[in-house]
């Protein structure tokens, strides 16, 4: 049975369509990555799932209950960390954590102390003195110290330092072992790649790709890095080749799986010196979708640059 499911979920703000027929499904014990750039609709989808926004049409269900009508019932078993944590400036972090835990009806005292220690948070400071990262820690400690069946995390590490990011990733691994389900929205792709079983890519309110990482990679094809004796002048005209990048005589490009045979045949005609094949990273997958959507050449170049360094 799926823990969280939306079908044809649509949300309009006036004339603007923020979500356009979104289908996602998170199974029990799954860590589900929800990726897309700022403004693509990730947070809107999450806020509809939490019953904070009312869907214009379509269905959003958690634990088989309606996200809008049964919000209170659902939230007893859900923990949420917002991406942008706004707290009350005149309360301490400790007070806020206790309040949040209590509001969900839980009692997470023992885990609270442990998490406060692991995240290195000073709970006696007023929230107004906290940096973005520390406010995020407050929300994380409050969410993670409670027993929940589903964790909804909206860019939970966007303000954390690498050490804290690792603490968070350790926690996700533990939670996954215990069979918890997690919806993790992020634009830190390496994090999603490390943690998630399944991924959905959202663009302008539409889900444009969804599946396990393996499936996605298979769909997309591989990255070939080739060094040949002679130049390959017409490589860009070969079908199934994308994102060609040359660096000191070494050419790398993406190849669609179904065109691999033809591409290999073309390449072998130029005297292969060295050939490497690798699966694309999530970042490469992601960039490819966005390039098709008209992203700038610059971004494309940047992504490949990173890979070669």
């Amino acid at each position, binding site marked *: 049975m799926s823990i969280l499911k939306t079908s044809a979920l649509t949300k309009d703000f006036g004339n603007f369509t923020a979500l356009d027929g979104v289908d996602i499904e998170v199974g029990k014990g799954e860590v589900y990555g929800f990726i897309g750039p700022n403004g693509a609709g990730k947070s809107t989808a999450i806020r509809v799932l939490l019953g904070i926004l009312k869907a214009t049409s379509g269905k959003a269900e958690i634990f088989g209950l309606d996200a809008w009508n049964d919000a209170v*019932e659902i939230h007893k078993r859900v923990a949420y960390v917002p991406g942008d944590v706004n707290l*009350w*400036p005149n309360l301490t972090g*400790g007070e806020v954590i206790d*309040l949040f835990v209590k509001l969900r009806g839980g009692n997470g005292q023992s885990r609270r102390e442990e998490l406060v220690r692991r995240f290195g948070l000073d709970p*006696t400071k007023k929230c107004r003195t906290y940096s973005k990262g520390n406010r995020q820690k407050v929300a994380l400690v409050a969410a993670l110290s409670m027993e929940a069946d589903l964790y909804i995390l909206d860019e939970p590490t966007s303000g954390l330092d690498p050490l804290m990011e690792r603490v968070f990733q350790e926690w996700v691994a533990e939670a996954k072992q215990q069979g918890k389900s997690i919806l993790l929205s992020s634009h830190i792709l390496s994090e999603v790649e490390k943690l998630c079983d399944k991924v959905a890519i959202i663009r302008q309110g539409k889900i444009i790709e969804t599946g396990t990482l393996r499936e996605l990679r298979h769909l997309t094809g591989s990255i070939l890095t080739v060094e040949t004796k002679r130049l390959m002048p017409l490589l860009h005209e070969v079908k199934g080749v994308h994102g060609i990048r040359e660096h000191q005589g070494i050419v790398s490009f993406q190849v669609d799986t179904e065109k691999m045979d033809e591409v290999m045949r073309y390449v072998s005609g130029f005297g292969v010196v060295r050939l490497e094949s690798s699966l694309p990273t999530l970042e490469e997958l992601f960039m490819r979708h966005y390039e098709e959507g008209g992203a700038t050449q610059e971004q494309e170049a940047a992504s490949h640059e990173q890979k070669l360094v």
Partner: protein
Amino acid sequence: MNKSLFNGTGTLMRFIWRRDRLRIPIWLLSFAVVSMVTAVAFTDLYQNAAERQAIAETMRNPAMTAMVGPGYGLDNYTEGAMMAHQMLLMTAVVVGLMSILLVARHTRSDEEEGRIELIRSLPVGRLSTLQSVLLVMFIVDILLAVTTGLGLYALGISSMDLEGSLLYGAALGAVGLFFAALTAVFAQLSQNSRNTVGLSVIVLLLGYALRAIGDIGMEALSWTTPLGWVLRSEVYVQNIWWPVWLTIGAACLLAVLALYLNSIRDLGSGFLPARTGKAHASPALQSSLGLAVRLQRTGLVAWAFGLFLIGASYGSVLGDLESFFADVEIMQEFLAAAPGSSLTEQFIPMLMSVMAIIGTIPVLLAILRLKGEEKNNRLEHFLSRAVSRNRLLGSYVVISLFTSFIMLSLAGLGIGLVGNAMMQEGLPLGVFYKAAIVYLPAAWVMTGLAAALIGWLPKATGLVWLYLVFSFTVVYLGALFQFPEWTEKATPFGHIPQLPVEEQNWMALAILTVIAAVLLIAGFAGFNRRDISN
């Protein structure tokens, strides 16, 4: 002094003007228009010297002195003298409020939100932000003085000459400048904008109260606040200018102090200590109601204290009022016109209606706090947990209703306890208390209206403030200017029986309560079906 401390001030001033390009002109226009309309109303109402003189006689009592300040030129009560007597102080208080809100907005609020940090990272002097705010306020106050002054002069009322009109405007502008500089100091002392506004408003209201006590007896107290000073300029009577210069001088000293404090502190810090707090929440905090109470606790206690103080200051004049009426024969004849109640008693409902409307301000603040929480994106902490929307809105409604009870009770007790201590023949405390508490249904209607707006028109919750201002205008000024009857009936406060002079009217109270309940239910229904904005 290092010139680079003030680098970029001009650009920042234009930036402030750009941000407030509507706000400031609306304030300025309101002052000019209200002043001019009032002056015209006075000339229409009292068409000859005899009529004006008759009204002057009713002004010769401590209650009026406490409320609007000492009357100058009561022997020759021209339109000008009337204007300066009845309007200058009240307008000055609102001008002070304008300064406080504008300055806090551009100093500590911006700093708290981290916007000043952005500006400081540019090639801008360390004192430029504060200096630009002060200079803008200086210009605003000059504009205020000129527009209001020339506006009054332009009416062509013979007793309102050019010098007097300019002095009237200058007095307002000087008070504005003083409170602008005062707020700038508090913005350095306190670490957040709420305390900045809170402390400044306390000084403003305390000044009004001290001056009230000072003007009816202990004159020294009137010298503790510029509100007391500017009244001594005897506008349109003697036209004395030095109180204006004194106020401006004091404002300059405060401005220099603010700049000094700003120069020796770190960005984001304040001089009032910020202590570390508890690591754990007390049981009282651990619910949506508990949090709502906690967030507003300080503010509500301050309001409660303030309401009691206002009640007490009105009460303190009742004794003088009593002996004053006893002395004046004309008054005793006048007294016969309303059989069954003494003149003191006749003053009670008028004072109560003013206090009830003031007491409704914290009532509305309490419920509208929910809107503030929504705007700051903090409601999702509740709605993403096991808290229903009914519970959430309910918490704030409960506090609002409870506040109405506390505020009206304290206002009634304040006037009753102090009044009885001052009067020879006191009234039973219950008379005062009932006269105050009878306004509860009116306050509830306002709570209901706020809830309905939160539910259905969350962007327009400001309308409820407009309605309260309208209520104040028709209830307080309506009697003075003889507005048509229906205007008073258009506000819930106009339907409340005027105890102890009028009969108790349970029907009116019941109808108001039902209206409040219907509005509340509508509010809950709307809140349950709308998006929470972010």
